[in-house]
């Protein structure tokens, strides 16, 4: 069991998992649209599969947001 944090909230994962799996676990509606920061560093989308999340890691999921012009 590893304790991590996602967007400032504590989460536990049962085994080492990749960022791709973590995105799935968090039911992100459009996984191809989320930006991920791991311990303050942006992770390239191409590395989501091979980047493992470990005990104590802090992750931020950032989502696209439009605006208010129209």
């Amino acid at each position, binding site marked *: 069991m590893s304790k991590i944090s996602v967007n400032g909230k504590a989460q536990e994962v049962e085994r080492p998992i990749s960022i791709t799996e973590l995105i799935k676990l968090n039911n992100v509606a*459009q996984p191809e649209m989320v930006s991920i920061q791991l311990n303050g560093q942006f992770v390239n989308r191409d590395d989501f599969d091979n980047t493992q999340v470990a005990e104590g890691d802090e992750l931020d999921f950032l989502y*696209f947001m439009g*605006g*208010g*012009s*129209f």
Partner: protein
Amino acid sequence: MDFTEEQIQRYSRHILLQDVGVEGQEKINNGKVLIVGAGGLGAPIALYLAAAGVGTIGIIDGDVVDLSNLQRQVIHFTPDVNKPKVISAKEKINLINPDVKVIAYQKLLTAENALEIIQDYDFVVDGTDNFPVKFLINDACVIAKKPFSHGGILRFDGQTLTYKPGTACYRCLFHSPPPPNAVPTCSQAGVLGAIAGMLGTIQAAEVLKYLTGVGDLLTNRLLTFNAKTMEFRTIKSKPNDNCPVCGSHPTVTGLVDYEQAVCDIESHRKNKNK
């Protein structure tokens, strides 16, 4: 710059602030700010910057006021429906504060005109609804070394980031525009009207902080909030070396007009034909 009695009275609540004072107010009055979009975010931004006495406010928007805008675009009033947004905004700004010089651009910001327009301003504020223009503002400001405020709202959420040369840009966080229609815009998904005010006033405060040099800007920090829970968070960021525009091997070296979501263009056409 010598303030008149009337100006001292008008700006007294700023002048009273120890961090601002007469000097800070002078900086505001000498400031030149470009607001891109006279909509949900642009409205509160323009109103507060006008009231604050920002000397020159440029406002760019190609749209006309639609009845569906009035739920949140508080600078436009019911009789303004069908009027160009920049004209409606200019009228209100002048009514609030005749000190302000307003430059209205009734057009879209494009790859062709962006650099030329922004060069006249100290600070650019992104109040647009669509990703092609958000990325265009980012790229133009990074290339021209111009500080700007990014703002985005959707449904019950808002996010904002301030950029200054050398700090994380919008592309550091969001590499490239989402495919058209992949992410809904407010015109597709809806937005709680007051959210536009919440975010727009934060952006306006950032502009005033930048002009006066007071406090710490939202640089290298993305502020996000959700109005359902009223939870605010700032996510610390730093310049991303792989950023396509400000990273060490930039691939974006000029400006491009990215493809717009089809339904946005449709809704524009609908508005124009009314």
